């Protein structure tokens, strides 16, 4: 699945759009705890999170994630946008809950990551 595909499934709006929405996603990880993302997130994957702070962006940059999707239409502050532009991390916003977002992406074939190895 590409980032554009995930954006469509999630009915997401771009806050900081990706230069290339056709970028392939290696998988997906959903978390509000950035330590979990730092420990288990994988390069090339999508992050679904309810954490609309700079730390979500910096975590995504450090783990080389493709994009961050903020759930439940949570407001995104200008500081976050500034950091996302600086770090070159695309940010999207979906009205869906985390459960719905994950469920739809799984159904659409995007594979999950968990501790250890990725599941196929």
């Amino acid at each position: 699945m590409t980032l554009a595909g995930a954006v469509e499934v999630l009915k997401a709006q771009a806050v900081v759009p990706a230069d290339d929405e056709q970028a392939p996603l290696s998988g997906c990880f959903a978390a509000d705890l950035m330590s979990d993302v730092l420990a288990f997130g994988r390069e090339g994957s999508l992050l679904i999170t309810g954490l609309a702070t700079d730390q979500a962006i910096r975590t995504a940059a450090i783990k080389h994630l493709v994009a961050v999707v903020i759930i439940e239409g949570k407001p995104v502050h200008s500081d976050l946008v500034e950091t996302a532009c600086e770090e070159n991390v695309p940010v999207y916003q979906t009205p869906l809950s985390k459960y719905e977002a994950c469920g739809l992406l799984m159904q659409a074939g995007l594979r999950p990551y968990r501790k250890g190895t990725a599941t196929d």
Partner: protein
Amino acid sequence: MDTRRLAHHEFPILGRAYFLGGRASTSVKQVLREAGVDDAAIRRIAVACYEAEMNVVLHARSGYMAVDIYPDRVTIAVIDKGPGIENVDLAMTPGWSSATDEARALGFGAGMGLPNIREQADAMDIRTAKGDGVQLFLTFKREVTDDGAPPTGDSGTRG
């Protein structure tokens, strides 16, 4: 162990400056890239540095991160002026945390910081006492080519 130090950098960390949390680690990534450190090592170092930096931001008054680059390794020292850790063994236990609600609101404080750092580093030494700050010393091995020399420039290695 190769004792030739190729570069030394220091980056300040401000306690409670949540909006700056992660900047020192981003700078570390940058200098490692410029020094030609392999991507796999940079990824491990960046994760450990970010966790360590957030520990300083969330718990201490101030601190700094020092990076030393050697041909075969990178060492990181994270030194802070803060409350210190009373029981290191407890702090190393996944899930144990003394973090505030403020820290949790930033997505940290789940008790995974030190365990995550230990997971990423090849060696870790922590010196601390209650009221005496924390001194964290980390060593990361670099990828070394067959002739014993570190790769120069961006090796393009993917780990």
